[in-house]
């Protein structure tokens, strides 16, 4: 390492007096003062465009983007939790309409949010295209020739040598090329530049941002997402009619659904048995057999919470779980009119669940008249005695509470009905001895007998489990990921690589001795430039060793901390 000397600054901004040599060390546009254009539409458009693609406006738009994203995290969003939005509307009757007008319940698809990021990306494209051009030009050209006075550069060194000027330049050219500088001889000096990767990285990063935005937008437009509850032993085929609920992006068409089907063989859930987190799931997985395509080969797999099944563009996620007790309903003559596993919806963390049984046809009452039956079910996987809340999510002491109705379920009216609720408008309660709603708590194997020979309902000794699956197709994920990877790599190159120039001038001094001058130029953040220059100078010095000096009295050694920091 050679010695470093610090001298007081003279010029204010050395970019100005370096001319071409200092230019284009980056392709960042120069800041212009906002001169208002002369009149004329074209003038105004050009002015507007120049403003939009300036770094200042880019910065402003970025700031705006971060501010605009804030309200969406504090105000409930329809796209995330529609229930919360409804709740908010009920509680804030004056505020809600204002929020509605401002799009505050849909911040990320609102006009103003879109306007900001679209402007930002227009600005980005308007910035990237000329910068790429300019950079290609720089790659085609050569590093600019040495400025007249190398002493004005931020890092500079000089010595006298016995070697011939041509020899020094030759050696310098070789050295710089070996250090992977782009170097060439221009006049009496070698001009070299290194670190183009910085610019490549920066451009790649900004382009990757555009790719990510497009991929994200594409994904939203062609996205589809639906849920299906499957009881152990049952299956699912990926067609629209099979979904419990389904939503899709505006350009999605039903043909886009990936063809596949699967059967749920078994669901396994185990839970923490003690401690403060008692009841939190430990193992939580579903064993499936599935086949891709219409006639695909059948395969087995296990789907876990963080490990969806991927079939083509589609992913199958395990999102929920519950119990489906097997229930048998008989008529007065003992004929089975209903026997099935009834999936119940969990109400709390310990899977206290509720649901209904609807016996729609095949049932005749004691008098032989056709009627419909309805049962409300309330299920506790672990009944602790006392409260009607489950004590633990696993099946430890199952209990099924049943209440019974008869009459018209209202299913034939054509109005869509929840499969988890009874519409009691045309239903009559079965009554017990005291004239109250007939209900009973059943253990597995127990039966509730309906009054007056109306039949019975039995809780069989079998409780199946069901798993809720979410099927998601979101094209463009690969592009988004690719863009993200390029963005990170590009960003790292952009921030860690220094772009810098080195000049080596060798001329014959007035006394016939060769004077070598070296100078380095980087951007203001690069502390490595003087260091590297010293290193280069030292290597070159070995090839062109110093000649006895015509004493240089202008500098005397004094320790200085300033030049050594970090």
């Amino acid at each position, binding site marked *: 390492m*050679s010695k470093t000397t610090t*001298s007081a600054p003279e010029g204010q901004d050395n970019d100005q007096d370096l001319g071409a040599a200092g230019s284009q060390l980056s392709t960042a546009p120069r800041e212009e003062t906002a001169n208002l254009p002369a009149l004329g539409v074209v003038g105004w458009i050009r002015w507007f465009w120049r403003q939009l693609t300036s770094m200042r406006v880019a910065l402003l738009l970025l700031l705006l983007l971060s501010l605009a994203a804030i309200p969406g*995290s504090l105000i409930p969003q329809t796209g995330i939790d529609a229930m919360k939005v409804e709740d908010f509307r009920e509680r804030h009757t004056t505020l809600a309409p204002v929020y509605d007008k401002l799009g505050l319940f849909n911040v990320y698809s609102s006009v103003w949010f879109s306007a900001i990021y679209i402007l930002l990306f227009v600005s980005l494209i308007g910035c990237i295209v000329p910068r790429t051009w300019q950079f290609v030009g720089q790659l085609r050209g050569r590093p600019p020739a040495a400025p007249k006075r190398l002493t004005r550069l931020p890092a*500079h060194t000089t010595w006298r040598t016995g070697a011939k000027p041509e020899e020094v330049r030759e050696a310098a050219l070789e050295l710089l090329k070996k250090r992977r500088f782009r170097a060439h001889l221009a006049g009496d000096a070698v001009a070299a530049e290194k670190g183009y990767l910085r610019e490549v990285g920066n451009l790649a990063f900004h382009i990757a941002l555009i790719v990510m935005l497009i991929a994200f937008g594409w994904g939203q437009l062609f996205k589809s997402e639906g849920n299906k509850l499957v009881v152990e032993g049952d299956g699912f085929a990926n067609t629209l009619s099979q979904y419990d609920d389904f939503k899709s992006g505006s350009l999605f068409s039903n043909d886009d659904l990936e063809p596949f089907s699967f059967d749920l063989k078994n669901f396994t859930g185990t839970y923490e048995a003690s401690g403060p987190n008692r009841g939190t799931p430990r193992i939580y997985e579903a064993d499936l057999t599935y086949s891709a395509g219409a006639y695909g080969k059948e395969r087995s797999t296990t789907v876990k919470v963080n490990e969806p099944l991927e079939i083509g563009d589609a992913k199958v996620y395990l999102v929920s779980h519950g119990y489906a007790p097997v229930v048998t309903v008989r008529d007065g003559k003992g004929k089975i009119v209903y026997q099935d596993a009834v999936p119940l919806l969990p109400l709390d963390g310990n899977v206290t669940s509720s649901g209904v049984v609807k016996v729609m046809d095949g049932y005749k009452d004691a008098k032989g008249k056709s009627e419909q039956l309805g049962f409300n079910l309330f299920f506790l996987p672990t009944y602790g005695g006392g409260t009607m809340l489950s004590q633990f999510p696993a099946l430890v002491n199952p209990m099924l509470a049943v209440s019974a109705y008869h009459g018209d379920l209202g299913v034939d009216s054509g109005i869509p009905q929840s499969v988890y609720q009874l519409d009691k408008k045309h239903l009559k309660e079965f009554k017990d001895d005291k004239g109250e709603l007939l209900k009973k708590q059943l253990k597995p194997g127990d039966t509730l007998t309906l009054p007056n020979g109306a039949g019975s309902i039995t809780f069989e000794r079998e409780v199946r489990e069901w798993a809720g699956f979410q099927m998601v197709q979101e094209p463009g994920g690969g592009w988004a990921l690719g863009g993200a990877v390029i963005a990170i790599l590009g960003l790292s190159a952009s921030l860690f690589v220094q772009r810098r120039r080195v000049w080596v001038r060798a001329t014959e001094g007035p006394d016939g001795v060769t004077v070598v001058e070296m100078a380095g130029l980087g951007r203001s953040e690069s502390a490595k430039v003087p260091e590297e220059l*010293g290193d280069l100078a030292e290597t070159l010095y070995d090839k062109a060793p110093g000649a006895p*000096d015509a004493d240089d009295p202008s500098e005397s050694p004094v320790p200085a901390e*300033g030049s*050594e920091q970090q």
Partner: protein
Amino acid sequence: MTLAAATNENLANLSNTLIYSAMAVYTVAFFAYIAEWLFGSRSKVARTAAALTPEKAAAKAGPAVTVKKAGGTAVLERPRVTVRAQGGARDVPDGPGAHGGSEKGDLYGRIAISLTVLAFLLEFGGVLSRALSVERAPWGNMYEFNITLTTVAVGTYLVLLALKKNVRWIGLFLTTTVLLDLGLAVTVLYTASDQLVPALHSYWLYIHVSTAIFCGAVFYLAAVSTVIYLFRDSYETKLARGGQPGRFASSVLERLPAAASLDKFSYRINAAAFPLWTFTIVAGAIWAGDAWGRYWGWDPKEVWSFITWVAYACYLHARATAGWKGRKAAYLALGAFACWLFNYYGVNIFVSGKHSYADVGLGALQAVGF
């Protein structure tokens, strides 16, 4: 099974003991740092003024200053590199550090650093035994997140010290906040050790959360440097204008690095952490894609990670744009760090979202760090 449980229990208790011990040692270190500053205040250093007052600067402009680095072995003198301050930056030397050149102060400073090392080892042990007790990475809840965060921040500080970077002056600020943070962790945020819910079982958790912790620790160091930069910068401006700063301000600020050094330090750290923060968000998106069926859903935590990211991008942009360097850029950096802080504490405490695991149907495990 019961044996394993007992081992885990013991490890968990050991972890708590180690964390409390670390806090005790940090407290002693804190007082040692204070002693360093106090003894340092007696020395009279005024190099900033010397460099900035007109007469002195004129005197200085004559002979250049030479720094002897690795001693040259050549007979003839080796070439010397002359460096000029760029872009009109002030040419001010760094302060001598908290001890202000006083030997006694320096001694206390060294004691403080040794204590910090000890506390770091204890805390590291605490984090490690916590991890062993739960048989997973110790990043499942806010408590674990906090003890890891402070460990990483102190570790980074010690590594920078070992690399001979000019960071010794951060010591007092760092131990102060570490103590506050640990105090918060053991009182408000404490969670008994336990395993994770399945939604958190993913190697992306380890990747995402570990980089998030690292970024936080590093952003924090940069933020401290930025705040000090703002003070030191006004101090230098005042001196350059011929003003006379107050005695306390001069005593403290005089001993800190020059504004330009502080600015550069925080820039470097922020710039180095930014790609990693980008990676953290991408890793989180991949994890969300696996766990929730969408890689980006504008969940509050995601929103604030995004805001933090854009804010740091603003800061980097600002530095590349003329007219926004220096103080303005520093305010942006602080704003960005405020976003990070809000994402870490605020979102968990004030805003409910998917990251609280209440609505995944898997039982409630509140306030998971990320």
